[in-house]
């Protein structure tokens, strides 16, 4: 049995003129435990919408999202979600942000040692008492990652967590995510429009078409871990994904 089963999912939104716009059209795919799957496609293809359906933050108009054969109806701590802008609580220190989930689920006597461990793992030592606005974007994103992963979710949903970062920081966070994935074997789904990122990290890449979002192809990544961003195989596979994203339409600008 798959960990995640997405079946015949449709999502329709109503725009400002009252028009019903299909955003996701007949989405079907499964994710196995321990997998790293990337959802890739141009802006507006509904990849974030799909991730929100998986988390339970939104509901599909038709079709089902099941985790462990149970229908997803609302957000749950077993499905972590990292937002594009981290959305750390600005009124909590970095440490209190990381321990926020533990505090509310385990009460006052939550596992402090576990918090220390994740602060170390994410390289945030020395910044525990800083407030989010006082740390860099990269550090904030590490803290956001720690905040979700510390809850040991069975599924971690990453919504373009590197999207707002500069190239250096982005590569750094990619490595952090890779390390965490290797160490914890948490199943992860990453939404991105960065082909490099998807190729570098994932077992499988789900290529989506623009509105209405449909799955064009699910590509298995043949490259062994750890991956070299400059190896010939990497670049070749990267080109393969790039070609699939171009959709043959001449006016389509591929995302990258």
């Amino acid at each position, binding site marked *: 049995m798959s960990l995640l089963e997405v079946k015949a999912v449709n999502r329709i939104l109503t725009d400002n003129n009252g028009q019903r716009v299909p955003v996701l059209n007949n989405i079907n795919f499964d994710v196995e435990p321990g997998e790293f799957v990337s959802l890739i496609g141009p802006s507006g293809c509904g990849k974030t919408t799909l991730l929100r359906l998986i988390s339970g933050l939104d509901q599909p108009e038709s079709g089902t999202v099941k985790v462990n054969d149970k229908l997803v109806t609302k957000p749950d701590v077993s499905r972590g979600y990292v937002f594009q802008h981290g959305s750390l609580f600005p009124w909590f220190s970095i440490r209190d942000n990381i321990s926020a989930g533990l505090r509310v689920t385990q009460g006052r006597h939550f596992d402090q040692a576990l918090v220390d461990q994740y602060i170390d793992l994410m390289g945030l030592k020395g910044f525990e008492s800083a*407030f989010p606005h006082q740390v860099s974007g990269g550090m904030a994103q590490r803290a956001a990652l720690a*905040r*979700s992963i510390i809850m040991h979710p069975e599924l971690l949903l990453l919504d373009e967590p590197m999207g707002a970062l500069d190239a250096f920081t982005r590569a750094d966070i990619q490595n952090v995510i890779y390390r965490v994935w290797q160490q914890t074997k948490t199943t992860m789904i990453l939404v991105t429009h960065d082909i490099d990122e998807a190729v570098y990290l994932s077992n499988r890449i789900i290529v989506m078409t623009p509105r209405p979002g449909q799955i064009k192809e699910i590509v298995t990544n043949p490259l062994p871990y750890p991956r070299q961003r400059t190896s010939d195989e990497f670049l070749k596979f990267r080109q393969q994904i790039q070609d699939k994203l171009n959709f043959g339409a001449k006016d389509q600008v591929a995302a990258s």
Partner: protein
Amino acid sequence: MQSSVKQERQLIQQHERERNYWKKWSIGWNVFSVLTIALAYLENALVPTQETVDNRYYHWFLGAYIAYLIIVYVIGQVTHGGVRSYSGHFAQLNSSIGILLIIQDLITEKFALMALPFFVSFAQILQQIHEDAKLLWESTLSSLGLWAVSFVVGTLLGVFLGLFMGRYRQFNYWAFPYLKVIGIIPAAAWMPLTMVIFPTSYMAEVFLIAFSVWFPVAFMTIGGVQGISKDYFESAKTLGFSEFQIVRKIVIPGALPSIFIGVFTAMGLSFTMLVISEMIGAKVGLGWYINWAKGVGNYTQVYAAIAIMALLFSVIFAVINKVEARLLRWRDAGR
């Protein structure tokens, strides 16, 4: 790394200080400000007085003022902390205070251009405060106590209603139209009714002051709650927060900046209501003291009470300001 964070925070603090206290340290201005206060002392001591007044208390005041300035300037000269930024910044303002003291002293008690009983010198106010010290002290405590109780009641009520109306659509739908119509009524309009409805005048006063407070607080709280980014609520849900925890850890801290705007708005209204309600119904308090002084035609007492109010309300304002700075220290300093 720990020390680098600490260093950075010190730098931020210094930066903030330099922004708030931006006037440069100037020994010339420091000396000049001390001289103007000293001149105020000399002027009062040397120019013959035309009105009856005991200038001792004024002399003590000026002496203390000069001593204070010399102490902070010396500390500022040898250290580089907050005292230097603060005292250096206000040196010029202190000079202006010295000059104003001289002018008011000359036109009142010295030359009687603005004369008793309607105009008094600062020295006469200080003398009055000294003479009425016990009564004024009791009045001040009484006013402070009444204000504090009423303000807390009104603020809590406002925050509570605001949180509910901001967070829950149903509550907002049923309550807000009524509360909006009630809240817009000036508290003073209820005065004749409260005097007869409430069993004690104290309760009536608490009601009136709290009434002037709750609405601005509630109104700003609603806006504050509704302005919180939905990302925080969604993050909280994926982290296992219950509704109660969301209210406690997301809604309240998220709305706090707006709540404080409401609190500061309400503060001015509450001082007004405090004085008015004490003038009408009370037998103690600074408002009552003013009313009583008016009755016996002693306007120096009115000035004395006004001077104490200026001090008292400034202190309250400063305290709430400090509380705000402390509770909202998570906000970006460069906001």
